[in-house]
């Protein structure tokens, strides 16, 4: 089944926050932000801003009615700066005006007298100065020191990966409407209904039951709308104080300049292998460039940390991970959530080792591929991974050895152009690593006409979660999907919801929906039994909208069943709750089972390099990925392809540049995301056949993030092509922009 919103998308009738009819008297909020990366605020001069045409109000931290705090995990992020600023772009004041342009023009007239303080933009410098968020995490498994002694081959190196701007098409925004009894209703573009609900209440200084947060859909999120509540809370505060509707819509370049990104990392790695190419030992230091506030960085770091061994079996390992506090906007979640970075380090280490050993990297990868029964560094035993089956399925499709031979031959006979290949195995743990977040609620209402309305905590942002939930409900109730409508995500219908994140949206909310529908089905079948004079409930079922008795259809159809049940005083509304079982991670020992299961896949990427100009194109990507028994193949294929393309962007052209003063230099006209013409001419997605997954709803597997890792293939295939030209240089950092490729070749 296709995404049910598409019929509206193609007509332009689907509504996003800024498409809701603007309420009469609606005002617009804009932010005046810090012009320096770090400093002490001596004074503010907001006279000119306040006197700007159309301005209705100007607010600073003094006006915050409740708590001036939006830190997502730690309390280290004020909504509006008090006496110091820690990054360029940090909100200092809010201006509210009659129109959007009046508000932003006024915001540009804010002035602050700030005593500039030395700022830090380098994570290593931050670490040396002790500027870190939280604590360093250390995970040791086996005896890496002793193991390195026995290794035939040991290689080490340092490497870095860059930031990635989300570039969700719909920038950060919210519309807040004051309602009666000092309550407030907020329509926002956020992935975090529960957490933002709490932030709203805290900042307004009112109980959560006076705040209703409603989310219809997002024009893309990718993690960027998970943790930073500023842009939702600010207009709500203005609306609350002014008793008028207030909307905040970030201009694109303001969004790019002040919002968080995928974290850049620096890595120091050492890997040791025996003569047969078995990885015996690996150690890696992960330095995360987090930015000024902790935001969600420690959770991201935790995932990099838990995925340091990538897709490989590594008996002896030492992982050290630290989040460095620097003076850039706080970085946050981005599809993959630290896993792409952790995977990049181990993939680079394995590739580097293979090169030194003079064997194909794919050979080392296959030999060490983690499989069912292998134990991960934190003690979790892998099961139901299908990792080898993914590899073998890919091999059968593409003939890995043949492709490698063809590329070697091409490179032997060509000098102006070269080709490169990379096989990337993906092994991605599914569940929030923070066990508490693995919970979801669903509210299912049946109406007397037989129509069904489902509410969950899941947020639709193009990933098709609502369609999947609709399918789960229809399948569980035994009716056609078009009888089911998935309602908006609303904190009054499903409270305290976890963010739609960690690829778990359908897993958690789908399961809660299934439970609620099962309860309703039980009630209806019990009633049908009475109605039909049949006592054995086992014999009664609902299929295709008809009550069946012992497998045979009866005269009792769905609409009649529901209406009659209501008349017989059967409760037609059900709330259910799901908490993923058996998850735990001991923070003291770093041992446990933090994930419900693993999502695996393997891909082959091929690039063509123009050695004269340093330009390149990704010629083909062939992916095999395990999505279990797919709830919707078209949606899952779209998720796989979309993730891969985003990963290719991160690995190649997406380059954010900062000035020496911490200013983001790359706005929309310079930060380039992949376009249609850069799509590899050959792109195939194969969903692994005959895969079952008892750990998620209807035997499916999560699909949102894991495929992004395949995009690393673009980096490693390019590296392969570059190494065929010369090997006298260190591995370049990611992304491999045309400039970096050129300088590797000619610099």
């Amino acid at each position, binding site marked *: 089944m296709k*995404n049910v*919103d*598409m*019929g*509206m*998308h*193609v*007509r*332009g009738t*689907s*509504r*996003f926050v*800024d498409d809701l*009819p603007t309420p009469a008297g609606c005002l617009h909020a804009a932010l005046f932000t810090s012009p320096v990366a770090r400093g002490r605020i001596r004074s503010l001069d907001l006279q000119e801003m306040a006197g700007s045409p159309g301005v209705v109000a100007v607010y600073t931290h003094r006006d915050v009615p409740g708590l001036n705090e939006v830190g997502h995990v730690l309390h280290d992020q004020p909504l509006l700066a008090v006496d110091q600023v820690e990054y360029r772009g940090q909100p200092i004041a809010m201006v509210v005006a009659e129109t959007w342009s009046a508000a932003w*023009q006024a915001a540009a007239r804010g002035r602050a007298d700030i005593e500039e303080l030395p700022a830090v933009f380098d994570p290593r410098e931050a670490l040396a100065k002790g500027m870190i968020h939280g604590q360093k995490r250390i995970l040791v498994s086996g005896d890496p020191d002793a193991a390195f002694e026995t290794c035939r081959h040991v290689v080490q190196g340092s490497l870095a990966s860059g930031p990635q701007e*989300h*570039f*969700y*098409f*719909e920038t950060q925004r919210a519309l807040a409407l004051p309602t009666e009894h000092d309550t407030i209703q907020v329509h926002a573009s956020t992935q975090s209904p529960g957490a933002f609900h709490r932030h709203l209440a805290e900042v307004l200084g009112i109980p959560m039951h006076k705040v209703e947060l409603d989310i219809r*859909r997002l*024009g*893309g999120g*990718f993690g960027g709308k998970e943790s930073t509540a500023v842009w939702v809370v600010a207009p709500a505060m203005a609306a609350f104080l002014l008793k008028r509707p207030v909307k905040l819509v970030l*201009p*694109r370049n303001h969004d790019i300049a002040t919002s968080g990104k995928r974290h850049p990392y620096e890595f120091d790695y050492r890997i040791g292998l025996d003569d047969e190419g078995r990885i015996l030992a690996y150690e890696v230091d992960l330095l995360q460039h987090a930015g000024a506030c902790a935001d969600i960085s420690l959770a991201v770091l935790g995932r990099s940390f838990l995925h340091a061994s990538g897709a490989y079996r590594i008996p002896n390992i030492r992982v050290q991970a630290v989040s460095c506090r620097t003076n850039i906007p706080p970085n946050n979640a981005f599809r993959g959530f630290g896993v792409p970075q952790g995977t990049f380090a181990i993939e680079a280490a394995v590739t580097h080792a293979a090169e030194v050993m003079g064997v194909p990297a794919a050979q080392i990868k296959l030999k060490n591929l983690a499989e069912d029964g292998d134990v991960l560094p934190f003690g979790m035993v892998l099961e139901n991974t299908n990792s080898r089956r993914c590899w073998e399925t890919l091999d059968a499709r593409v003939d890995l050895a043949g492709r490698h031979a063809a590329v070697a031959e091409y490179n032997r006979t060509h000098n102006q152009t070269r080709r490169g290949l990379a096989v990337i195995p993906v092994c991605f743990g599914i569940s929030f690593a923070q066990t508490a977040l693995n919970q979801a609620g669903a509210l299912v209402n049946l109406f007397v006409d037989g129509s069904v309305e489902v509410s969950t905590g899941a947020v639709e942002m*193009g990933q098709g979660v609502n369609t999947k939930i609709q399918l789960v409900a229809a399948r569980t109730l035994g009716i056609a999907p078009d009888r089911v409508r998935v309602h908006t995500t609303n904190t009054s219908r499903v409270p305290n919801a976890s963010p739609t994140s960690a690829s778990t949206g359908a897993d958690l909310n789908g399961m809660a929906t299934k439970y609620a529908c099962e309860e309703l089905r039980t009630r209806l079948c019990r009633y049908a039994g009475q109605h039909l004079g049949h006592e054995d409930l086992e014999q009664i079922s609902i299929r295709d909208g008809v009550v069946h008795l012992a497998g045979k259809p009866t005269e009792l159809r769905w609409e009649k069943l529901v209406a009659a049940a209501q008349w017989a005083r059967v409760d037609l509304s059900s709330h259910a709750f799901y908490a993923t079982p058996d998850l735990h991670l001991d923070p003291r020992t770093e041992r446990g089972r933090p994930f419900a299961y693993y999502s695996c896949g393997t891909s082959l990427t091929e690039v063509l390099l123009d050695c*004269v*100009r*340093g*330009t390149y*194109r990704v010629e083909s990507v062939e992916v095999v990925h395990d999505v279990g028994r797919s709830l919707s193949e*078209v*949606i899952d*294929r*779209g998720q796989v*392809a*979309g993730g891969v*393309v*985003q990963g290719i962007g991160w690995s190649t*052209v997406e*380059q954010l540049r900062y000035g020496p003063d911490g200013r983001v230099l*790359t706005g*929309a*006209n*310079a930060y*380039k*995301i*992949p*376009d*249609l*013409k*850069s*799509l590899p001419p050959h792109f195939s997605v194969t969903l692994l056949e005959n895969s079952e997954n008892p750990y998620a709803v209807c035997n499916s597997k999560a699909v949102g993030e894991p495929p992004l890792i395949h995009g690393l293939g673009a980096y490693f295939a390019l590296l392969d092509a570059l190494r065929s030209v010369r090997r006298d240089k260190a591995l370049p950092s990611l992304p491999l922009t*045309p*400039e970096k490729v*050129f*300088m590797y070749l*000619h*610099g």
Partner: protein
Amino acid sequence: MTSFVLNSRVVHTEQPPGTVMLDFVRNASGLTGTKEACREGECGACSVLVGSPGPQGLVYRAVASCLLPLGDVQGCHVVTVEGLSEGPLTLVQEQILEHSASQCGFCTPGIVISLTGFCLSARSFSFQESQDALDGNLCRCTGYVAIRDAARALCERLEGVEPDPAVRVATLVEAGVLPPGFLEVPALLEGLENPQEPPVAGGAPPVLVAGGTDLFVQRPEELLEAPLEFLSRHRELDFIRVEGGVLKVGAAVTLEDFRLSEIVHRFFPSMREDLLLHSSTILRNRATLTGNIVNASPVGDVTIMLLALDASLEIRTRSGQTRRVPLSEFFQGYKQYDLAPGEWIVEIHLPLPPPGTRFNFEKVSNREILDIAAVSTAMRLILAPDGTIQDLRLSAGGVAPVPLLIRGLEGFRGRSPEGETAGLLARHAVEAISPISDIRGSATYKKLLMGQLVRAHLSAEVLS
């Protein structure tokens, strides 16, 4: 007052002519299907179709509405996604749906518009042209695989449909690409095509707007207040013709019309591909060659090409006289050029290439399409009958404060273009440039790259 047809109804508005169409359709007309995602023409989410009256009826083009001034659509038909959604799904919408080529949906209305624009303006319904038509539409989710499949299927469905411009609209209504309401539009437009009101005498001189694709990125607030004069209304400047061994291009000619012109193609065959490296379809449909010149960006793609081609400019002075300036002498410093207030460039003149001419354009940018070059360079080489260099012109973008013509190449005349010439020319070029380090690349990179691109100019491929 501006009058035009918006979807299927006539609109008269007193909003300032510098209001961008995106704001007009979303805020004043409540048509929220058109999405804003960048406001700089970078993403395509806000694309609309503009049908302008031409000799064979309305000529439709997809353009970025965030950079389209309201005043420039006087007498035109503007179509938003709602204008394609008045009945059953169109063929384009159906194919997007069929191939699941939409995820979050924010880019989708722009994709629908650009693919419909392709149907309305393509020379043939070929898959390659459909991809060119989507070069300015980004999808972050990113559904390109499905979008490509949808475009391919659309082309297959249009197989056998005749892309005759004279009956294009009727044909596409028949094929289900356009709603039948399109046929009623010419009647609605009758009487609306007034010439623009002359600027108020004695007031501030109007700002001359060509395509506006850069002006409305740089100074939107200022243009909202200012009196504007639209070059597109000067139909007499919309021509491409050959006269006396010179290709003359009127100031109002858009880049896309220039790219697809058969006359241009006859004399400068590589332009059709080369100009695909300039911005994107939705911008080229508005942007002009003259706009690219007076923008005076040191890295303007068209300017770099025209410099190598020995273009000159015909400028109309305030007194109505004309004067000629070689393009190579037009630029005087960073964003400084030889054009007095009130003067206009009215024509661009390109000498027709003599036999033995080779033209090559090289551009390297971070992303290949819709990106600003780190370095661009063009070469015009005229070979004598004996295969030696008779004349050589070389230009370079992104490496100096102005679009640069590299001088002092006379010494290369009489040499063979092969062998060590490429190396010598590369060294000469690298010494002539003074790039700075910026977001497009380091100075070292640009210097080394310049050398490589000059070598590429004299590659066997170009010389053959």
